[in-house]
């Protein structure tokens, strides 16, 4: 099992406006999550527009995040849900008895 690399990049670092690809690539996650400041957003977008490698990286990251999120969208199977409902009924009924609502 390999640990995820810290700032692994697929191409040699280049520089735009004093900032290298490696500097900017670390902010892509924040960008995708809408958590960058306006200024950082503009800087990164300008870089992504110029740098094909970083642009592709941002787009493929966006895709993989979307797949990951979709993969996690699941519901309980019917038998598990039935057992869950039974447990809830037991707990609530027991609570009512303790509270004296049901003699």
């Amino acid at each position, binding site marked *: 099992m390999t640990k995820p690399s810290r700032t692994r990049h697929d191409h040699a670092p280049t520089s735009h406006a004093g900032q290298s690809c490696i500097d900017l690539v670390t902010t892509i996650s924040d960008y995708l999550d809408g958590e960058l400041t306006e200024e950082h957003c503009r800087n990164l977008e300008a870089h992504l527009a110029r740098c094909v490698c970083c642009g592709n990286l941002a787009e493929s990251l966006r895709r993989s995040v979307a797949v990951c999120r979709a993969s*996690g969208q*699941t*519901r309980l*199977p019917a038998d598990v849900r039935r057992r869950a409902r039974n447990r809830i009924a037991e707990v609530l009924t027991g609570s009512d008895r303790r509270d004296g609502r049901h003699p």
Partner: protein
Amino acid sequence: MKRKQEARSSPGERPAPLVPTTPAYGDLVRAAAGGDTGAMEDLLMWAQEVAYRFSVHVCGGVDEADDVMQEALLLTFRHVKRVRNPDAFRPWLYRTVRNACLMRRRRRAGEPMHMASLDELIPTPDGLMALDPTDPGRSPEAALVSTRLRRRMQAAFRSLPAPFRLVVFLREMEGLSTHEVAQVLRISNANVKTRLHRARLFLRQRLEERV
């Protein structure tokens, strides 16, 4: 100043941020604590759903999911009546479920671990499935994700080291905010972001190399 990116309306504009939508759990907790039986039932079902998903995706213990669900149910039922900050309930629940899973894993240390395969999580024409992804509330984007792609993602997800897998599960699959993940794992927001970014690069690389 932090900003929210606007939804993309035409090509060339800034893409919409990947912000997960989260129901108002704080309101549900307030209603349940206030004696609303329906809200309590919803809350207890939600707690068990979280416990089930956590067992399956993170602990890999489908067999023990029922036990973890039971524990989550009872602890939630006791906790909700004395909760001070309903909005902090969500991190509390995930922390509780995580602890329950870890305790059970320690108890069965040495036993072979059963990791749920995606084949168990995806409906098949003739077979049973552990999870039912045919959720009517599923987004169109989710519906477009093919079984093959899900398998590749699961393989990539499972190959993540545990600390990274946890962050991905909580943030991406469960939709917790960065701050909530930090509360669950008791690490800094910056640490959550760093782990998430590295995990995303890792998952993306694994997905791309398998195409």
